[in-house]
């Protein structure tokens, strides 16, 4: 795919179920890309406005939970006159297969995109079997 086509607008999707959220406020589902290489699974999540200090990643019962909080203090002294999108925190969860090495997961944030690298366990990596 080349970058030559027109970039379309995708309406932000609100998170449907909000378990254990006691603070009022809407959450959004970050757009995600997932790709796999021989060594690892990579997750990319778009969370504009979330700095790396406000990302919370947890693994519990084979579920990887990602939450990104936006800092909306900058909006305190300004008032909207025209809006096309809303803002809010981000949350999304993914089920993990047992082929992922949980202790080796790494994460990084750049330009509002969270990158999670989930290395595969050794047993799950492709192996070449030599023929004698």
């Amino acid at each position, binding site marked *: *795919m080349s*970058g*030559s*086509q*027109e*970039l*379309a*607008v*995708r309406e932000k999707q609100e998170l449907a179920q909000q378990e254990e959220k006691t*603070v*009022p*406020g*809407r959450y959004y589902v970050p*757009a*995600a*890309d*997932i*790709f*796999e*290489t*021989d060594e690892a*699974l*990579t997750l*990319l999540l*778009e*969370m*504009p*406005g*979330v*700095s790396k200090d406000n990302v919370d990643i947890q693994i519990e019962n084979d579920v990887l939970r990602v939450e990104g909080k936006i800092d*909306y203090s900058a*909006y*305190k*002294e*300004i*008032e*909207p*006159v*025209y*809006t*096309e*999108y*809303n*803002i*809010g*925190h981000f949350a999304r969860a993914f089920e993990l297969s047992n082929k992922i090495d949980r202790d080796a997961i790494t994460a990084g*944030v750049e*330009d*509002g*995109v969270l990158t999670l690298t989930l290395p595969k366990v050794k047993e799950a990596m492709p192996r070449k079997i030599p023929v004698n």
Partner: protein
Amino acid sequence: MALFPDAFGSLMGLQNALDAFRRSDWLQTSPSAGGSYPPLNVFRKGEDFALVAEVPGISRSDLEIQIKGRTVRLSGTKLVKYPEKASVHRRERLQGRFDRSITLPIEVDQDRVTAECRDGVLAITLPRAERDKPRSIRIG
């Protein structure tokens, strides 16, 4: 201005305030308006204005901002890359070119316009031109 007295006390209040100005007629559609990406929010801070857009995954070098008269133009390219040998399981992030122009209903002091892009959020500060600012007329 106490339009939303406690609006900014909580995120919910802010979200409701943002909803209330969805497609307000402050920014009239003009012939110069090309594409619709990125979606924009416009805020007022005192006499000045600010344009905010979410542009996750777009690096500063791929983003161009131009201002001419009352027209602000945002253009660039968003690229979503994968390693060559990767198999893609899920693809929700969109890529492509964008070119959007909007015409502001206010006059801007072009020399004082500043832009900042942090964590995928672009903010352009548009100071209102001195000659465009409202003046109080004293009744003699």
